[in-house]
């Protein structure tokens, strides 16, 4: 695993991930499910040269065989299993790391999408952990994983969600689907502060979650 120094930046502070909560009945159904996040100064912008260089380095050491063998590695496999368990087909609705691998093979490289997306790409490819980014200034209270209540909808997406849809939510409303779908309700364009969110499932060690958040923070601050 490459050191974060490769991005050209070292963190001069230790990110302390905040632990969110999981609705009790979901925690009982899915032991090991968790959510953690870190807030960092940074807004949506073009990626700086160190991050672009890191993407190029990642592209150079990632091949088709990696993509195939990836699903045998514990963390990508854990997300595949979780997808099956929540009724999604990971060969159709790809897990985040497999989607990135597929895009890498399709595009010939990890292409830049600006910040914070590039930071998430680097951290996800390095660790396999599923990450999301939200505008931290728009979050209300602690983040959680819960199922949707009747009449709830995602920001920026018309129509109600089906009751029982698994979502990432703050204390006020759902922010995004837990997995699958592309709606972030505009939350992916942080204006000042970015919340990097990691979703943990059974089989993903806490150390990997911490490392993913740390790599993403370092990339954003580079």
């Amino acid at each position, binding site marked *: 695993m490459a050191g974060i120094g490769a991005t050209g930046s070292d963190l001069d502070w230790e990110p302390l991930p905040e632990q969110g909560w999981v609705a009790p009945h979901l925690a009982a159904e899915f*032991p090991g499910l968790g959510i953690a996040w870190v807030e960092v100064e940074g807004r949506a912008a073009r990626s700086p040269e160190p991050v672009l260089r890191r993407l*190029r380095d990642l592209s150079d050491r990632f091949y088709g065989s990696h993509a195939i063998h990836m699903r045998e590695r514990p963390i990508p*496999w854990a997300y595949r299993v979780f997808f*099956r*368990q*929540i009724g999604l087909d990971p060969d159709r609705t790809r897990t985040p790391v497999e989607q990135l691998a597929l895009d890498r093979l399709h595009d010939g490289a990890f292409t830049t999408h600006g910040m914070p997306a590039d930071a998430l790409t680097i951290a996800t490819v390095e660790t396999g952990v599923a990450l999301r980014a939200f505008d931290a200034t728009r979050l209300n209270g602690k983040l959680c994983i819960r199922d949707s209540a009747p009449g709830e909808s995602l920001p920026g997406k018309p129509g109600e969600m089906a009751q029982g*849809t*698994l979502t990432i939510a703050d204390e006020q409303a759902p922010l995004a689907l837990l997995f699958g779908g592309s709606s972030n309700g505009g939350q992916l364009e942080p204006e000042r502060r970015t919340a990097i969110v990691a979703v943990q499932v059974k089989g993903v060690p806490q150390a990997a979650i911490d490392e993913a958040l740390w790599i993403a923070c370092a990339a954003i601050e580079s």
Partner: protein
Amino acid sequence: MPDLLDRNTLTALRVGGDERLARAELRRQIARLEHELCRLSVEAFPRLDLDTAVPGHFREPRVAGLEELERVRDALAERIAGARLVLKEQSVVETRNRDLLRQMLAAPAEHKWLRISRADVGEPGCGHWHSRPRLGPLGMLMGWWRVKISSGCPLSGRLAAVER
């Protein structure tokens, strides 16, 4: 990885003996089957492209019920059975081709113009073994047959990512 395959004994006891226990067991079985399917698809790569898709039941993530979990488990088991069969059939063909290759190398004249690729014997790369006459038509008339080994095609060019 093994902790995903373990029974959630404590959880199961804590939540009682209703359907949740059955769902936990089905999830454990799905994890085990998914592991096996991944192993088979990796084993088959790059010789075969196994179909590992098992239709999901929802377009959005939800807590799957007993029925859905059972369907996923059964579909995974079916896929695994199919993948094992395909791999076994492929293995039989490759073994037969390896025997043929051995015979061709021992007696090229008895296998005129026969060409066996690396893929035919389950090896990576695009090289091949080809039984051909030495010195062209003259060798053909004289019966000077030999097996020519191609080491495969060179890379078409530097990887695009290297150029950047």
